């Protein structure tokens, strides 16, 4: 049994706590240590994903003599230890997180080079990544709460890292407050389930669950608190404040952490409860949250004057797309015929959109960071004429903006098309809203492109030149991936997205992989 | 429009009683033109400079006047600036023209601005400033209105005295590029005064105006100019 699952967490935690030590020795050594640790984590993640895709779900019991032995012989059929259950869906999320970690860490090596306090910065960054990897691969509810907390606290500290006159501190505080409240309500729900089924393991609870009133309360609490953590509309107010005040490489990672909580909603909806709950209602709840997020997110983004705030509102509206995609999947879970006809495709669209979103949204925030790194201001009214001096950044911006707006050759289009067509059969009204939101997204990014890159060379940005190489590599990787995913969507869907969607749907397979004790 | 319509004489009496000797030589002119002989009434008054603004505000109480233009002419040793208002323009043929003439001696050409009580007067005040050299006190926007930017300072086109347009500034378009080998025009012979070079004297000016009418006939029909 390979130890990649354990390595996936061990390396970031080791790197995080060793960071201050290497920092003492020297700045360059600490940077190289960060890069080495990051590369190690990414390779562990890729190997793990490769293994899952080839051999199917991996179950890793921490601390057991034989790591594959999920249920100890004397525990009477109840998995005691903390289990990592990594099926195709978790592997998909690990891959997304790994790519973003690679780009963001490389980016922040040079974007944070002149700043102070880099030891703490990288330590928190690795803690954040450890939290994300843990959230997406754990099979244990309480363990999920623990990783949620690690994730939130590291994210909040990083969001408030560059004080920026108290604005960042306010953003960080809001993020921390929101996450802890969401986490606590999630913990209450976990407590309810533990009280009723006296186990914390998702698979075990799934196998013995019979939907009582208490489980109903648990489902509602879990879904709403995770929806808040991922920033769906009625509870999205923290997103613009936190994302716009956090340093850009951190915002790229905060997006990944909000998607991890999105993954958690679907893990709970599909694997934990599945058909035992009233899927149509919960499905429609998720869809409504999705529609609200889509429309209000982008309509708030249009009049914005600050580029990062505008992009933060866009991340709210893009989360809406995923919610709608997978919400339709949940809603038709009961009806096999409808599921086969468009349910699976809607889910595939939603999942494919997760990785596309991570790619181009991360790239957009890194570009915003590059512009702020060079020009010092994020206000659209002061910027202008950067196209003359920052050619590469402009090129990446064009790719990312076209991708987010869903323009054909790029990856955004492929996933949005899947969502449009399948959701159209389910309910045409939602598909129409999705398309209108796409147009408004394009409109607002045309505005950003016009005011940031076009126009004459302004005198105050005369000395601005291209961003240093590591930042360009970070952005370049994401841009290349966007183009590749755009050109070969079928390749990506068949190898990554389809198994993930089927793994989510296959609730009994999930239970069997753990309970069966293979 | 229910204000009381004053007869011209009552209007003048109002001003004379209000300003006494500041208002001098009031005059009423009533003309009737056209087939219908509709009357139109002009009321002229000469006003001193410092009684101007109070007079205008009084006129505003009678009926809000329409300032058509501030015109003026160079009467030799003084400039007579005329504020031309029209009131009662509501009724048909009921309009009065009220004209305040302000004589200004050439040595202190200063006028108070009336843009504070009548903002619309700015353009015509700016034009008076550049055409007559009258300085308007605290005019909000003292830029030139019609003259080009590179127009020489101290030259005021509408003045008849030495600060008027010197002859060298006048560019006679009809003189330029006239073919010199053209036979004498078949017009009745007038003594052909010698072609003077640029520095003619003033007396030449009137005589020149007479001569200039001849060039029109020289180009009777559309003549196709060969391109060099």
């Amino acid at each position, binding site marked *: 049994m390979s130890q990649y699952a354990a390595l996936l967490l061990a390396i970031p935690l080791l790197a995080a706590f060793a960071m201050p030590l290497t920092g003492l020795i020297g700045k360059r050594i600490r940077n190289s240590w960060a890069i080495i640790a990051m590369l190690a984590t990414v390779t562990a993640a890729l190997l793990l994903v490769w293994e899952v895709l080839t051999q199917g779900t991996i179950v890793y019991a921490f601390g057991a003599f034989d790591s594959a032995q999920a249920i100890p012989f004397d525990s009477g059929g109840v998995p005691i230890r903390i289990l990592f259950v990594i099926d195709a869906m978790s592997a998909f999320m690990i891959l997304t997180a790994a790519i973003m970690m690679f780009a963001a860490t490389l980016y922040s090596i040079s974007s944070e080079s002149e700043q102070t306090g880099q030891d703490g910065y990288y330590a928190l960054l690795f803690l954040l990544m450890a939290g994300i990897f843990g959230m997406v691969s754990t099979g244990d509810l309480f363990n999920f709460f623990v990783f949620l907390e690690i994730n939130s606290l590291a994210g909040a500290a990083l969001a408030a890292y560059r004080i920026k006159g108290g604005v960042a501190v306010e953003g960080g505080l809001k993020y921390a407050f929101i996450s802890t409240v969401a986490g606590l309500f999630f913990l209450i729900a976990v407590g309810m389930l533990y009280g009723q089924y006296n186990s914390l393991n998702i698979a075990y609870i799934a196998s013995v669950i019979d939907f009582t009133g208490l489980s109903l309360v648990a489902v509602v609490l879990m879904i709403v608190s995770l929806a808040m953590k991922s920033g769906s509309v009625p509870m999205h107010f923290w997103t613009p404040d936190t994302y716009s005040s956090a340093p850009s490489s951190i915002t790229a990672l905060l997006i990944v952490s909000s998607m991890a909580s999105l993954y958690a909603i679907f893990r709970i909806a599909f694997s934990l409860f599945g058909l035992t709950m009233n899927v149509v209602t919960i499905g429609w709840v998720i869809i409504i949250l999705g529609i609200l997020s889509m429309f209000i997110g982008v309509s708030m983004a249009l009049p914005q004057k600050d580029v990062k705030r505008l992009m933060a509102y866009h991340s709210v509206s893009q989360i809406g797309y995923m919610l709608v995609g997978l919400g339709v999947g949940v809603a038709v879970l009961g009806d096999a015929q409808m599921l086969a006809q468009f349910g699976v495709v809607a889910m595939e669209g939603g999942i494919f959109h997760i990785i596309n979103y991570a790619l181009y949204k991360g790239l957009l925030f890194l570009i915003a960071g590059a512009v702020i790194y060079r020009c010092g201001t994020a206000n659209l009214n002061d910027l202008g004429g950067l196209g003359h001096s920052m050619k590469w950044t402009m090129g990446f911006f064009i790719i990312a903006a076209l991708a987010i707006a869903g323009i054909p050759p790029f990856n955004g289009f492929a996933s949005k098309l899947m969502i449009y067509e399948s959701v159209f059969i389910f309910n045409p009204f939602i598909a129409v809203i999705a398309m209108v939101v796409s147009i408004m997204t394009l409109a607002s990014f045309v505005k950003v492109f016009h005011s940031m890159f076009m126009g004459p060379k302004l005198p105050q940005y005369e000395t601005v030149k291209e961003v240093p190489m590591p930042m360009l590599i970070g952005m370049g990787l994401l841009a290349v991936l966007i183009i590749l995913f755009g050109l070969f969507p079928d390749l990506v869907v068949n190898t990554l997205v389809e198994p993930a969607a089927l793994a989510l749907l296959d609730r009994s397979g999930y239970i069997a992989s753990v309970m069966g004790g293979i | 429009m229910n204000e009381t319509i004053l007869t011209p004489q009552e209007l003048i009496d109002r001003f004379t009683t209000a300003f006494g000797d500041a208002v001098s030589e009031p005059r009423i002119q009533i003309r009737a033109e056209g087939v219908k002989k509709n009357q139109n009434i002009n009321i002229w008054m000469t006003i001193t400079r410092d009684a101007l603004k109070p007079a205008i505000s009084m006129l505003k109480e009678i009926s809000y006047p329409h300032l058509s233009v501030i015109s003026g002419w160079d009467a030799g040793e003084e400039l007579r600036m005329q504020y031309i208002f029209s009131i009662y323009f509501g009724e048909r043929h009921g309009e009065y023209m009220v004209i305040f003439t302000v004589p200004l001696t050439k040595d202190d050409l200063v006028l108070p601005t009336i843009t504070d009580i009548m903002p619309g007067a700015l353009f015509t005040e700016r034009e008076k400033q550049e055409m007559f050299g009258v300085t308007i006190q605290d005019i909000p926007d003292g830029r030139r209105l019609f*003259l*080009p930017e*590179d*127009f020489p300072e101290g030259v005021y*086109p509408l003045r008849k005295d030495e600060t008027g*347009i010197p002859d060298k*500034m*006048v*560019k*006679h*378009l*009809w003189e*330029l*590029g006239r073919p010199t080998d053209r036979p004498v025009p078949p017009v009745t012979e007038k003594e052909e005064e010698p072609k003077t070079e640029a520095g003619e004297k003033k007396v030449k000016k009137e005589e*020149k*105006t007479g001569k*200039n009418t001849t*060039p*029109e006939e020289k*180009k*009777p*029909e*559309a*003549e*196709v*100019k060969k*391109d060099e």
Partner: protein
Amino acid sequence: MKLSPSFKRSLWVFHFNAGSCNGCDIEIVATITPRYDPERFGVRLVGSPKHADVLLVTGPVTKKMAPRLRRVYEQMPSPKVVICIGTCGQSGGVFYDSYNLDGPVDEIIPVDVYVPGCAPRPEAIIHGVVTALTKLERIEGGEK
């Protein structure tokens, strides 16, 4: 020599008022009314010099209008023809002793056809345009 096909039924005209008293302008407008109807030959007034082949200049060029007239002339695509309408453009006409003139039109831009008259009649203007047409043919024919 025939005009290139693109001129066959479209000789587009751009009118430039360089300080005229609007007498000639009203005559030009009178020329394009249905009574004289140059539209049937494709002669049409256009809003921008960039679409025009013929430039109608009225009025003596005042000092402020001279640079603008030069710029509009240069902005017209070649081959182009300039018609100076009215006596003012040729000899200053009624503004003969004005201090603010910048010379007859042909000192500022090369003029091809002169239509004299203090407000020339529409027939004279049309005759001018026809003369301009023959001039265009010669230009198209390669003689400068």
